[in-house]
């Protein structure tokens, strides 16, 4: 007797977030009505995207494995961005404004904005823009960056439970989408989404960062949180129905396993973490090594073969 598969039906779906200048190149993430790649239960109208991460200045502490793969272009963010698009086929980029950080240059907004403009003109793809991670400096610089890029419809991050108002207000005013971050905590993830949407922000323009951890450093916990949030969204929790972004490269290349052995191991570490996050429900991965990005794009294409449009 054939075994009949148990199929879960969902009442809710994940929001679709569109990034990029209207009328120009745009990408969409989210929109799923099923757990990752389970096409017999629902649909995944948009394939998960792999964004290559670049910095707004030459990286000071990135491992040689990544630096070598880019060569001299690392000194020029616009050339770096162009290389990602032309040579590696990136259709979305993530720019981290490291130079804003007090420890890495403390650059003011008026020096950062021209760099971003040149990246946009050379790369011509939608952008994710991350602050430096220093709340005080970011709250000073990000509103100016947001305003300067009005109309580009970027995805800007990150807003946290204790520091969301400045970024949410500025993204709202300038028409950007926002990344809501929580410290591996589903309750706080939901709370940040509520806090941001209470400011009048359209929940369908929020992307969640549930915190990323690398393979070997508690990745399973992130996986379980993402899965739980997804299931809640499918049974109707609109405050968890946001797509996920995961900063895989940032976490993986901090580990000694990735940095201190062979390039191959580092790249494989990034691929393994990325694949796991895709299986947990990631809609957007931020990746550092071009070989890992290429492998993950291939993996997504392979997994999407069964997708109904």
């Amino acid at each position, binding site marked *: 007797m054939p075994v009949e598969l148990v199929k879960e039906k969902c009442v809710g779906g994940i929001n679709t977030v569109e990034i990029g200048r209207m009328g120009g190149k745009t990408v969409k993430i989210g929109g799923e009505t099923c757990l990752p790649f389970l096409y017999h239960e629902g649909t995944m109208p948009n394939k998960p995207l792999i964004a290559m991460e670049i910095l707004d200045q030459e990286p000071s502490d990135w491992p040689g494995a990544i630096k070598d793969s880019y060569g001299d272009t690392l000194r020029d963010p616009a050339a770096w961005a162009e290389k990602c698009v032309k040579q590696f086929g990136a259709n979305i980029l993530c720019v981290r404004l490291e130079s804003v950080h007090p420890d890495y240059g403390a650059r003011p907004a008026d020096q950062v904005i021209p760099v971003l403009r040149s990246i946009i003109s050379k790369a011509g793809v939608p952008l994710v823009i991350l602050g430096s991670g220093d709340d005080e400096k970011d709250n000073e610089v990000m509103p100016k960056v947001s305003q300067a890029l009005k109309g580009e419809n970027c995805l800007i991050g990150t807003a946290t439970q204790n520091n969301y108002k400045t970024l949410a207000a500025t993204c709202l005013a300038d028409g950007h989408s926002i990344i809501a971050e929580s410290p591996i905590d*589903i*309750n*706080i*993830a*939901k*709370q940040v989404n*509520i*806090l941001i*949407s*209470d400011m009048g922000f359209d929940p369908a323009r929020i992307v969640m960062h549930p915190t990323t951890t690398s393979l070997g450093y508690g990745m399973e916990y992130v996986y379980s949180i993402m899965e*739980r*949030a997804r299931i*809640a969204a499918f049974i*109707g*929790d*609109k*405050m*968890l129905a946001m797509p996920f972004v995961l900063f895989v490269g940032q976490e993986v290349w901090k580990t000694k396993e990735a940095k201190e052995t062979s390039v191959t191991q580092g790249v494989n570490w990034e691929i393994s973490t990325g694949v796991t996050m895709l299986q947990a429900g990631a809609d957007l991965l931020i990746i550092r090594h071009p070989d890992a990005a290429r492998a993950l794009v291939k993996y997504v294409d392979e997994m999407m073969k069964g997708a109904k449009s």
Partner: protein
Amino acid sequence: MIIIGELINGMFKDVGRAIVNKESDVIQHLAQDQVKAGATVLDVNTGPYSKNPKDDMKWLIENIQKVTDVALALDSTKADVIEGGLKLVKKKAIINSTNADEAKMESIFGLAKKYNAQVIGLAMDKTGVPNNKERRIELAATIVAKAMDFGISAEDLFLDPIVLPVNVAQAQGREILESIREFRLLCDPAPNTTIGLSNVSQGTKHRPLVNRTFLVMAVASGLTSAILDPLDKELVDAMITAELILNKNIYCDSFLDAYRKR
């Protein structure tokens, strides 16, 4: 939890008057207020004094649907009043209600099938309301079996154990709560359960407290819907908290706000 707002009922003086005088704004405000407060379905009852319930039901539905698109529970003992309503509803309606009498079930489930509606099944028959859970379960099982004969799915059935006022039938509280739990086991997938909540506090001095406490206990017993006053914010807050404790929703500090954003 499916919250069925109870306030559009001709039994209430303001509603009864609005029906007679055709004051559509009164009805529309009541509809909008209840939906805003969390009602996912609105009960519509022309009340015992309506001289022409068929026309009044029609008038109520048309006016409610002008301001909200939530589902309606058509509340009448007369099949022709319900059928008139079923022809007008834009969303899948709930018929309120049938009991376990053969002729009544034939008529109501026939309408439910014809118009693709859900049904509230009262665990009582012409002999009256049972005074123990065994009889309630027996009658509920009769209703489930009949619904299945008509091809109506369990999810489209709301079994009601009949709530009685605590001051006149105190021994029934436990029987009712246990019935709710047992109703959920009658078939797989489980049928929905519902109660006319306000009945429990009829004639008591502390009505909101009695309603609130009973609702929480019923939710813990597996209740999936209730006909209640959604404008009683403390009542709805208690229900949301009960569901949170039962792990039906994910906690966050603003969980009351989060529930209402669903």
